[in-house]
């Protein structure tokens, strides 16, 4: 009996693909970036709920020794929390006390290239290994018990402007990882590596080369610098065996003249066979984007009735201010409507292609367009509550003045082709909104006085957790949007919240400023 128990414990320590598939069945853990493969960022835990959330207090605070943005989503497995810290460090913490169990500290070369901060959004875990992508574009497997490096694979030469900020996605026997560098004229791709050895299993270039379908959507040789980075963690459906992953802006960002055409597969949702890396379908949200509206949001997968028929859906609140519903088996466009102020399109046609308004492209003098460069949503996670059957989104209401500039490519240097600035006197604000996922209609709104810089978590306690640019974390009632709790954490919050159990206590953890807070009801 004792032997059996020991066996079970040992087995329990291994995070198998089977466990990742059934993440909901062990809600005391948080096993993937979004909590499950479907991108829900929903915790089935309900010890913290509408009746007691007002008593939420920090159980502990972990301070990172860095002034860079702290964007990690912790992974929790059986009492151990794995976080990343700037630039590409990994730390294992005890979930009860917040004390460090081990650290992996990677020295970073001085010449790493990042557009938007020396950030990392988290690790993946599979078997007894923890996986982290680094700013110098390595994928590294660490021993989950010690932090020792088990393998270290150079994904690509970082000096050409590539970096890894995304939390990898572990599935089956592979680690899927995307690349950043969309402001450096890179050629984007999505990779998968053998989880045990670090050997590359497949690579899908998000900008097709000569002779490949889609290459004709790039004028001349502009495909070489087409960007379409893959810097936000996607979703996976075991039934279709497809990985769903968004792609970023075409390069250069604001000068489209040097890359005439639709610029495939920039600003797309890609559905890629998890075993082969072959493209099954794609949907392009913003063809020939000239506003830097990456489609690198987290896709949310649900099965629901859509206009009378049960369908496998993919929900996507895009940076371009339109909310999309796609059929995730075929990629068919089902619904698209604005969910924030936008002035660039009259609407979407029957195939979901935008019907652009005149004179919305950046100019030398500047063009006022909504939404802003940061978009109506960014990489900030949405959350789907099966309990309330609502999709929660941290919405950004703002516009920008977009400028057109010259675009001369030099490897390793920024390749923008313009710029932007805020519209003088124009208020920028935010909101947490709850949407009917199949109609895109808002059910309630919680207004915020400024733009959010992180997404939301929903829980089975009928709660939605969000944060503000001024450093608060707060809880809303999931079905009504009523404010139930708030806490000032002392700096701009830039991470998506998650939830787990430590012993018999439910925690809600989120980064605020340079600290990771873990809250409990005492």
């Amino acid at each position, binding site marked *: 009996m004792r032997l059996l128990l020991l066996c079970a414990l040992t087995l329990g320590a291994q995070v198998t693909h089977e466990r990742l598939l059934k993440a909901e069945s062990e809600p005391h853990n948080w096993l993937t970036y979004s909590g499950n493969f479907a991108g829900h960022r929903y915790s089935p835990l309900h010890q913290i709920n509408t009746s007691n959330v007002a008593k939420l207090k920090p159980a502990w605070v972990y301070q990172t020794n860095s002034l860079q943005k702290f964007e990690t989503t912790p992974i929790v497995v059986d009492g151990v929390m794995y976080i990343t810290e700037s630039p590409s460090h990994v730390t294992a913490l005890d979930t009860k006390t917040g004390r460090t169990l081990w650290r992996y*500290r990677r020295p970073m070369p001085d010449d790493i290239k990042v557009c938007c901060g020396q950030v990392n959004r988290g690790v993946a875990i599979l078997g007894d290994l923890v996986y982290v992508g680094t700013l110098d574009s390595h994928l590294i497997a660490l021993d989950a018990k010690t932090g020792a490096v088990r393998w270290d694979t150079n994904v690509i030469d970082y000096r050409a402007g590539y970096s890894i900020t995304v939390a990898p996605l572990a599935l089956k026997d592979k680690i899927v990882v995307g690349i950043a560098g969309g402001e450096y004229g890179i050629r984007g791709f999505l990779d998968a590596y053998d989880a045990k050895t670090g050997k590359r299993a497949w690579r899908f270039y998000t900008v097709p080369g000569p002779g490949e379908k889609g290459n004709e959507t790039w004028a001349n040789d502009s495909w070489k610098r087409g960007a379409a980075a893959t810097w936000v963690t996607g979703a996976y459906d075991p039934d279709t065996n497809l990985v769903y992953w968004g792609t970023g802006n075409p390069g250069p*960002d604001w000068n489209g003249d040097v890359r005439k055409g639709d610029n495939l597969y920039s600003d797309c949702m890609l559905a890629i066979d998890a075993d082969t890396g072959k493209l099954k379908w794609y949907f392009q949200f913003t063809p020939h984007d000239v506003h830097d509206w990456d489609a690198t949001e987290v896709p949310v997968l649900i099965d629901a009735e859509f206009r009378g028929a049960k369908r496998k859906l993919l929900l996507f609140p895009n940076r371009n201010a339109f909310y999309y519903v796609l059929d995730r088996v075929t990629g068919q466009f089902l619904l698209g409507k604005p969910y924030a102020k936008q002035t660039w399109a009259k609407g979407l046609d029957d195939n979901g292609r935008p019907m652009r308004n005149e004179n919305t492209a950046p100019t030398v003098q500047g063009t006022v367009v909504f939404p802003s460069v940061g978009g109506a949503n960014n990489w900030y996670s949405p959350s789907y509550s099966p309990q309330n059957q609502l999709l929660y989104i941290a919405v950004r209401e703002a516009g920008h003045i977009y*400028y057109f*500039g010259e675009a001369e490519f030099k490897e390793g240097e920024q390749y*923008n082709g313009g*710029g932007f*600035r*805020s519209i003088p006197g124009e208020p920028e604000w935010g909101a947490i909104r709850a949407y009917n996922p199949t109609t895109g209609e808002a059910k309630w709104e919680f207004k915020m006085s400024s733009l959010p810089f992180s997404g939301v978590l929903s829980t089975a306690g009928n709660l939605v957790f969000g944060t*503000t640019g*001024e450093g608060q974390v707060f809880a809303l009632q999931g079905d009504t949007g009523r404010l139930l709790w708030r806490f000032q954490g002392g700096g701009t919050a830039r991470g998506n919240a998650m939830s787990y159990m430590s012993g018999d206590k439910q925690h809600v953890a989120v980064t605020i400023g340079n600290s990771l807070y873990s809250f409990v009801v005492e």
Partner: protein
Amino acid sequence: MIWWAAIALFQQTIALDIPSKNPNTSEADVAAGKKLFNGRCAGCHGPAGEGGKGANLAVPRLTRAQEDRALYRVIRYGVPDTEMPASLMDAHEIWQVAAFVRTLGRVQSVAVTGDAANGASLFKGKGGCIGCHTVGLEGGRSGPALSGVGARRGAQHLRAKLLDPSASVPENFRMVHITTRDGKTIRGQQLNEDTFSIQLRDGADRFHSLWREDIAAITSERKTPMPSYKGRLSDSEIDDVVAYMASLRGDQ
């Protein structure tokens, strides 16, 4: 543990090892810096560095960045307690932006013709400016402090401000009237706000902090209480006040 201390030390050394002179000031560097500036800085500082939400950079002397190394640090690490964030660029790019920013200061400034000494008397006497604006140890608090205004703003901007003060009210200057749920009214300058609370300083310089749920009504105006000096002061007196303000560099 020793290797990790060594790494920490090594990284510290890199951080301290900033050259005192900008190593990247070629024409190509300035051009590259301009591109970076347009993408990363112009949003707040304006495409020509003329200022907006961010400080006016088209001035001969940047108070926070008189030396190259200081300019590097401002771009690299941001300015605490302001909206100027730490930078996202690598060292080479930062130096290129710095090189471009230095060219902004060479913009021809409008010559100041007035008599600064007479301007000082007008500022404190007939003009009544000192009643609202702090200069050094003197002055009121309801308007922005002007101790170093000459280093931040060009003479042309100062003149425009005197003639038409409502044309550009600072983003952070907002007068609010608040009625609380228990019937109190407060009027003051808004100091801060967020989704849940608001902070202000009233006319008697008292601080107030209120939760939004305790507020029954709030109105805010970006209107400035400052009067226009068009007609209140003669043209030559305006010149003198401009000359005085342009001479205020924040030092003795």
